[in-house]
């Protein structure tokens, strides 16, 4: 296990790379969902406003 973690001496490069990429994937998933729900909320707010007027 520690062999695996040390990555043959390249741990300081390999693991940050993996973390960076996975982090960007997760961030993109969250950002995409947030972008959609913001648009959804905005559209809903607009519809409510139009019904009120």
């Amino acid at each position: 296990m520690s062999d695996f973690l040390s990555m043959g001496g390249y741990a300081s490069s390999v693991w940050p790379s993996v973390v960076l990429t996975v982090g960007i994937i997760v961030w993109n998933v969250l950002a995409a969902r947030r972008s959609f729900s913001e648009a959804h909320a905005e559209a809903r707010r607009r519809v409510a406003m139009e019904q009120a007027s």
Partner: protein
Amino acid sequence: MDWTWFHRFGSPPHLYRIAGRLMPWFAWPTAILIALGLYGGLVLAPPDYQQGDGFRIIYVHAPSAWLSLMAYTTMALAAGAGLIWRMKVAHALAASCAPIGAWFTVAALGTGMLWGKPMWGTYWVWDPRLTSELVLLFLYLGYMGLRAAIEDPQRADRASAVLAIVGLVNVPIVHYSVEWWNSIHQAPSVMKFGKPTISWPMLTPLLIMFVGFTLLFAALVLVRVRGEILRRERQSRWVAEVVAS
């Protein structure tokens, strides 16, 4: 030839519904493939005889670079379709590609630099691939900057579309000229990035990652495009029905 599929695709409510329905079919395989690819690349694949375990960065770097280019191409083609046929959904699609592409350009650059530290002894050398990725990042930033600077959303769609197409014509030229420039200035002994001697046990996880990232891109675009369609169709009746339910 039957063009109804084309018009149906061009209809915002239709694409909105289709995208919502398709998304899970991309999301789950994406998660599985990327997990599989990472396991294969980090654990199963044998170390490279020259670069040792350091070469494993390629399993995250190459798919990110691939995604960054794929996103730009998709963006420019969608933008072109939007300009030619005045299709709102095509512009929505183009707008969804940009932030995704830009982020994975950052991923490709970051992982490239992390690979460079042990191999070249420094985080940055003017490697042709890294340089091209950097220019690509500037193209993405310019595209998003132009979009943000124009207030009228339709004008923003159309102006950024012209820029995306000009950029698409330019990307291969940039790539080629950077390669050429590098061949003149770089000492030949320097190790080029991403050229390990590849064998099947090494290649299989990489291919899995490529497929996984392609599906990831599709899934992310499908989520974002729905939001972009809603932003562009605020006034229409179908949006009122969709958000009310």
